[in-house]
């Protein structure tokens, strides 16, 4: 078995890079330029958020923090589906 204190070398690097990617995606979500771009960026942000959730759960040793990961993963498809329906039915030119 590997000592969990070794995580202190891996987690700051990984969380830092994921945090940077997350902030860049949030710029795209806020700026656009179109609705599909925003939704696509939100999808990838959600995937990053799942990993950040699980890393924090592992760091604090609490499985309760990890509960949100599976609904978040399901949310990706649901969001795309709802926005696609909206685009096709409401905003079709």
């Amino acid at each position, binding site marked *: 078995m590997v000592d969990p204190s070794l995580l202190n070398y891996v987690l700051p690097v990984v969380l830092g890079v994921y945090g940077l990617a997350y902030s860049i995606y949030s710029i795209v979500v806020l700026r656009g330029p179109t609705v599909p771009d925003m939704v696509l960026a939100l999808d990838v942000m959600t*995937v990053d958020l799942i*990993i950040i959730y699980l890393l924090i759960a592992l760091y604090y040793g609490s499985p309760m923090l990890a509960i949100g990961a599976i609904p978040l*993963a399901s949310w990706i498809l649901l969001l795309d589906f709802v926005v696609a329906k909206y685009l096709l039915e409401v905003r079709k030119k």
Partner: protein
Amino acid sequence: MIDVLLFVLGSSLLVLSAVLSLIGAVGFLRFRNFFIRLHSATVGSIGGGVYGLVGLALLTLSLDVPGYLKYYIFGVAIVSAALVVFASPTGSHILSRAAYRSGEAAPRPLIKDKLKEAGLE
């Protein structure tokens, strides 16, 4: 011995996935239109998400932590990875189809539109 191997493999996958996620994010900023940004979305979600979740699952298995925590996080990571593998490409496809058909995102520069020629617009 196998624990050290799992730890090294999991950490490497996690770091690779973080870098791929950053590359995908930069691609989102740099690419010109929605249909080209779909490529960087794939890099971000499959490279930056699924690799990382599988790496996290392997990393968790190798650690000396209580069993309930280890197997819980392993299970959640694998199930989330499976859901992302299913949901992300499907969602991108649905979204790009809707963006093309509704005219919300214009595919420019456009050299040849095979969908229009085939009447599948």
